[in-house]
């Protein structure tokens, strides 16, 4: 068993299994929540629920996500909002606009797209890693986060962190052989794929629920969400 074997396993059968677990797990969670039943809102609206939801999503995307000067509250802890925002932006850039990852999407979806030059992706990856370390430290020192952080939250951070770091080390050929890092990267990705449906990393799916509910609740009151 050398690194090449590990890599073949992690890129091959394990990836396939992890992806299937991911799909099944997410379907399970989505269906379980949707089928829990929804009360029909009979309150006569003052404004547009759909409009509110639309603004809610636009704000979430365009004012990505938490530029500190957009909302007054953010002035209190701007570094953390920036870290959270940059982390997600970086994740998007690296996962969608990085050439290597686009090829993964292409092999899965059957079509590809234009990608960004490597230095941009690379710097974004570095920013993402720094942002994540910042969030990690914040979790250690913020009194509220100390209260609400349990093993699951630490596991989330670690399981997202490992693929990012191994990916970065791999593109820079740092310290270890490329195949070793590639193997670790893929193993970590497989673990992540399996972990997502079991954890709160799945928030990207429920984001669409909570944001829509938020927008509709404010929209029907004719208040900007």
């Amino acid at each position: 068993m050398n690194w090449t074997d590990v890599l073949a396993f992690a890129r091959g059968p394990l990836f396939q299994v992890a992806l299937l677990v991911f799909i099944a797990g997410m379907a399970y969670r989505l269906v379980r929540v949707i089928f829990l039943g929804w009360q029909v809102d009979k309150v006569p609206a003052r404004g547009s629920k759909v409009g509110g939801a639309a603004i809610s999503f636009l704000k979430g995307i365009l004012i990505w996500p938490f530029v500190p000067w957009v909302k007054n509250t953010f002035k209190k802890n701007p570094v953390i909002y920036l870290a959270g925002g940059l982390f997600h932006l970086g994740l998007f850039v690296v996962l969608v606009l990085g050439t290597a990852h686009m090829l993964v999407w292409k092999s899965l979806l059957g079509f590809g797209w234009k990608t960004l030059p490597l230095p941009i992706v690379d710097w974004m990856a570095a920013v993402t890693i720094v942002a994540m370390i910042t969030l990690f430290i914040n979790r250690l020192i913020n009194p509220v986060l100390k209260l609400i952080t349990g093993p699951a939250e630490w596991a989330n951070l670690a399981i997202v962190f490992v693929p990012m770091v191994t990916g970065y080390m791999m593109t820079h050929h740092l310290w270890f052989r490329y195949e070793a890092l590639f193997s670790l990267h893929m193993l970590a990705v497989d673990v992540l794929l399996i972990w997502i449906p079991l954890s709160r990393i799945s928030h990207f799916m429920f984001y669409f629920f909570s944001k829509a509910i938020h927008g509709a609740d404010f929209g029907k009151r004719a208040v900007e969400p």
Partner: protein
Amino acid sequence: MPEKTIYEEMKQKGVTRRDFLKFCGAIVGALGLTRLPTISADGAAYKGAKGFQPAQLVAQALSTKQRVPVIWLELQDCAGCSEALTRSQSPTLGNLVLSQITVEYHETLSAAAGFQVEEAKQAAMQKYAGQYVLVVEGSISPIDDGVYCTIGGRSSLDILKEAAAGAAAIIATGNCAAFGGLPKAKPNPTGAVGVWDLITDKPVINIPGCPAIPEVFTGVLAHFLVFGTLPALDSLHRPVAFYGNTVHDRCLRRPFYEAGKFAESFDDEGARQGWCLYKLGCKGPTTYNACASMKWCGGLSFPVQSGHPCLGCSEPDFWDGGGFYQGQSAPLDKPTVLAAGAALAGGAVVGVGAAALNHAQKKSHKQEPKAKE
């Protein structure tokens, strides 16, 4: 009769001292010698003469040492490495080095055949026991009593073990001898393996590639010739001097990779412009070899330069590392639409089941709190 030194032999063939010194310089360059090697063939620290410059050292070695006897085995191979070597386009180096070895046994190149040549091999092995360099080309099939590869009725494993016993060092040339190569590709019916999987009590130098780069082979040989030691090796027993960088690291198309300019197909504008072939499946980033710096055909070109993505032929199991034209980062296996659909449906069914149970739970509690009032 004491044998002649290499320099003496060269002089006899009409090589002038001036040409000899130039040759020494060329070897130093080929080996990338900026300092003296530290490890000798037996693994002990090398006690090189202090104060010598590398070229002087080479000159001294060649004027005191005798030609190196070589036994060349071909097992599960295609003779491609031999072919590449004999067609080597750098006579000043390769040919001269090759002229300084005595190939005692080589199936393809020997004039003799059959029992005669086998006898010659036995004789050479006895005569040069403990001195000869064993070059292996092709993988070994150790399973099922070796029936899948026999020469003169003997299995490849037998032949290798016998030849290895008296060797000073073993050079595994080509991906087959080094890592099992093409014969080892899935499903590997012959159980093919590389030399270092079987021989652990002798120094084994791997020079993988399909074929191995001739100049790398001659460089390693020259090193052994000059110093009587092995060059510095990496974890896969490859000489670091030649396998220290990836093809990607030294690739002339690398700037296009950095700039995000990729050929999307073999006949698009990007391909004509010479852009990076990463998206067409180039394995350069994971392939450690000297193609991009030493190149082929006398430094003329190498695959990526001529428009074809690197196959990664010097890496272990390159044949099973995904499609040659599939992006390197792409997964090797992906679920079929059916499997994905089944997973989706399965997850959804479990989800509906869970929701039903949860509903039942909600119903059973519906009255309870009010009853407590």
